[in-house]
């Protein structure tokens, strides 16, 4: 190598390790001014069997229905009665009241752990309401709203969190890792994204049997980096599985901002190269989420295959009871979030169309809070985490296999000895 070549290489070498930055850190002021918020009339609502490539504008835009005036506009406005909207509002408020109570109970040492979905209640509630109850749900850990929509017993959810004698999964999982076959709600896993390809397999089986159920799954923005997400998209598209694959982009994966997975694009855009429509929707707009989910479900039932939906929202509180968001993001970053709060937006809409009032809202809030207090007392009567009663200790040897093999029979005797 000559000296001249060395100099040339040095000049040409401009590569630099790029590290994405957060929307804010404790020492900076949150700034979401770069986020473009289109008007509800800006998005097209295409035929449900459109080709992904022909509707890619939906992957880069933001489907909205509720405008800044709290009224409905644009082609995505769903046909929803006031009663149904009020039910949606009630579910979201119920979830929030539940979350608040459970969070407090964790702080008082009554629960080992808890995860709230504050600020993103519309995702699970609107999507759950847009689906048929026979559709199979493969949720992540922040879609507790689905269980409210499917009228799961609140007391039983609390019993799961308490791992008490009434816990239907027998004290085997941490709080919030619900499972309810009766409600077509799949057993939650702590290993992120695994449910995504499982949902695709479930949908493939539904198609194999000629049934009309759709499988629906959720991951967060951070989890989109996992291989299972790619597997789900490839397999889902290859076999045109009747599935809806959702990414809840709530901006944060514990302390890691969404920019560590979004690679400078939208998440919705990721599916287009795999021939799956990608739709980005205002995740705090109950009506828009409902409409987009309905569109995707219809596409799936008509044999059009998967839809990839990015729900653009914001995680108002910490990841779980185990982290303090003030340690990694700007204080009150939520107040800067430009898409508001889903409960407040639906409330304002209902008030604007004359179906609701501030007084009714306050009354409902008190009613739900009281209900939750009552439910909590009832759940505790079935046993507390520390003092039980729990399932018998030998029950841990059950369900490892359908029938207990000799080595587990032996161990179950040892534990009691």
């Amino acid at each position: 190598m000559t000296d001249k070549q060395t100099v040339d290489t040095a000049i040409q070498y401009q590569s630099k390790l790029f590290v994405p930055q957060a929307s804010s850190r404790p020492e900076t002021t949150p700034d979401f001014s770069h986020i473009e918020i289109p008007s509800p009339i800006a998005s097209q609502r295409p035929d449900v069997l459109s080709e992904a490539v022909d509707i890619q504008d939906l992957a880069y835009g933001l489907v909205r229905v509720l405008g800044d005036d709290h009224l409905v506009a644009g082609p995505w406005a769903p046909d929803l009665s006031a009663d149904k909207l009020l039910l949606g509002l009630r579910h979201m408020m119920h979830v929030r009241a539940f979350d608040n109570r459970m969070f407090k109970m964790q702080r008082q040492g009554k629960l080992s752990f808890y995860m709230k979905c504050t600020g993103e209640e519309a995702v699970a509630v609107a999507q759950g309401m847009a689906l048929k109850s026979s559709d199979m749900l493969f949720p992540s850990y922040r879609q507790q709203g689905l269980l409210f929509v499917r009228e799961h017993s609140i007391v039983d959810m609390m019993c799961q969190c308490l791992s008490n004698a009434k816990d239907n999964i027998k004290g085997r999982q941490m709080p919030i890792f619900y499972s309810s076959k009766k409600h077509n709600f799949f057993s939650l896993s702590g290993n992120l994204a695994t449910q995504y390809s499982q949902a695709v397999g479930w949908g493939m089986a539904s198609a194999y049997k000629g049934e009309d159920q759709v499988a629906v799954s959720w991951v967060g923005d951070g989890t989109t980096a996992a291989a299972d997400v790619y597997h789900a998209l490839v397999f889902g598209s290859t076999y045109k599985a009747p599935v809806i694959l959702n990414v809840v982009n709530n901006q944060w994966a514990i302390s890691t901002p969404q920019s560590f997975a979004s690679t400078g694009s939208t998440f919705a855009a990721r599916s287009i190269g795999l021939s799956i429509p990608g739709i980005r929707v205002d995740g705090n707009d109950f009506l828009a989420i409902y409409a987009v989910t309905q569109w995707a479900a219809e596409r799936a039932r008509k044999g059009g295959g998967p839809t990839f939906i990015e729900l653009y929202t914001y995680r108002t509180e910490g990841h779980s009871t185990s982290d303090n968001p003030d340690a990694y993001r700007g204080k009150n970053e939520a107040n800067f979030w430009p898409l508001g709060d889903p409960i407040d937006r639906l409330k304002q809409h209902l008030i604007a169309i004359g179906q609701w009032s501030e007084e009714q809202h306050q009354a409902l809030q008190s009613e739900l809070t009281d209900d939750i207090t009552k439910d909590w007392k009832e759940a505790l009567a079935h046993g507390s985490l520390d003092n039980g009663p729990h399932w018998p200790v030998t029950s841990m040897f059950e369900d490892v296999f359908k029938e207990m093999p000799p080595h587990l029979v032996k161990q179950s005797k040892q534990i009691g000895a």
Partner: protein
Amino acid sequence: MAKMNMIQALNSAMDICMDRDPNVLVMGEDVGYFGGVFRCTDGLYKKYGPHRALDMPIAEGGIMGVAIGMGVNGLRPIVEIQFSDYIYPAIDQIVSELARLRHRSGGEYFAPVVIRAPCGGGIRGGQTHSQSPEGIFTHACGLKTVMPSNPYEAKGLLIAAIEDDDPVIFFEPKRIYNGPFDGDHDKAASPWNTHPLGEVPEEHYKIEIGKAKVLEPGSQVTVITYGNMVHVAQAAIKNSGIDAELIDLRTLIPLDIDTIKASVQKTGRCVVVHEATLTSGFGAEILSQVQEECFWHLKAPIERVTGWDTPYPHAFEWEYFPSQKRITQAMLRTLESN
């Protein structure tokens, strides 16, 4: 009775189950149109169609994820992992999901998936086509682990696995797909049609999972093995003239400790043989249990003959592959210490 090699016997098992139950399907890389790289699913595509002999994208983690979802939705998927060496991308789905689903959901959900995976060496496959990873899966709770050693049992065990409501990982020692192999690689290969266990009924039958078989009765030493090594150990016993009792485990989990216990308590000596690497191999588990159950009957330290703790070497295959000689030496060592 028909003469079948192990490939034909496995094919017959899948054919029968697919014929009897429309919810059974085979899936994996190259299993459909082509019939599998080892031909185990040959003809199933033509007979049952592309949706039941289902070719899949090359992503073991994805294949396993969708198999679980299918199983939860009432199907009975038989997944072929082309080589057991390729199973690692699917480990999370197998160990964290498939194996634990029934337990973590309080018995609400289960996925009756069978994972078939050709394993083992002796085929000049080097380190990426020769591994025996069964010990990884016996360590996970909730998986039944099976490894047959001949066509007759391969068919009966596979049908039992397909009809089982628990997930079963079914390792197929590929060196003996076409004929038993006693470890003597200089000798001409013998086909299954000259072996009594190459006689395979064409109809449906099952061999119970969780039961070992005493293959050769003997009184001086118990040799415990499975898969490929059954034939190597059998030849070692025959050629050495040692009065050894040979046990073919057939199933690793659940382990048939009663059969092992009865034999070792009788012989007082024990040699464990497997092709997988030594440290933390399934042999270590057998040793522990023999020690727990038979300590006061033992007359000699328990011996292990296994693959070495190295990646499987291409050039030194026959130095790596546990030989008749090593097995004989191990048996003799147990007999020497009195």
